[in-house]
């Protein structure tokens, strides 16, 4: 799943480790989520959204929904 975490983190000048600390996860988890290797659970996605003061939809792109919309056009 594509997401905006890297950009949002860069805007705030946070390292992966700093973000990981705030979320209570490992730096490797943040890296895996950022690179799309791992999709976070709903509670973790909510924590991320809360931290960046955004909605989940603003951070994570629902690729399946985007593909459906593209196909409909």
């Amino acid at each position, binding site marked *: 799943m594509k997401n905006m975490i890297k950009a949002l983190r860069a805007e705030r000048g946070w390292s992966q480790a700093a973000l990981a600390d705030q979320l*209570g*996860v*490992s730096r*490797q*988890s943040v890296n*895996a989520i950022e690179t799309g290797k*791992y999709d976070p659970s709903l509670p*973790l996605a909510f924590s991320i959204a809360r931290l960046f003061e955004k909605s989940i939809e603003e951070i994570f792109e629902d690729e399946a929904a985007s593909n459906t919309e593209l196909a409909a056009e």
Partner: protein
Amino acid sequence: MTQQTFKSASKRYWRAFVPIMLVYLVATLAGSFYLKTFEVEPVWLQTTVAVACTLPMLLFLFIQIRYFLETDEYNQMIQLKGFAIGSAITVGAIFLIGFLQMFHVVDQVEVFWFGPAFFIAYGLSTYLLGGRQLL
């Protein structure tokens, strides 16, 4: 419920892991040296040493499971997949070697070695699944 963070779960794991491994090391070394002092090793003593060496290993497996439950979700996924693949490889090896023994293709194999084999298979699987990032 208190949410365990990755760091506190890791700290808790290492705090338990180090003493358990030290006890295991002392039990295996002291136990085998002590047994060698007997001309004919008493069965009850052999059994006691075997149990004393096994208990820390069982405890280690329990703290490993506790770590799976307490660590963050990504690490949990990697560890559980590694554990499952390691178990599958080891069980597969047990069946294969077991059948080869029954068919008299291979001689008797020490069952003990399936234990270390499991930990090697689990460790390698975890590493290859992405756990290498965790090192």
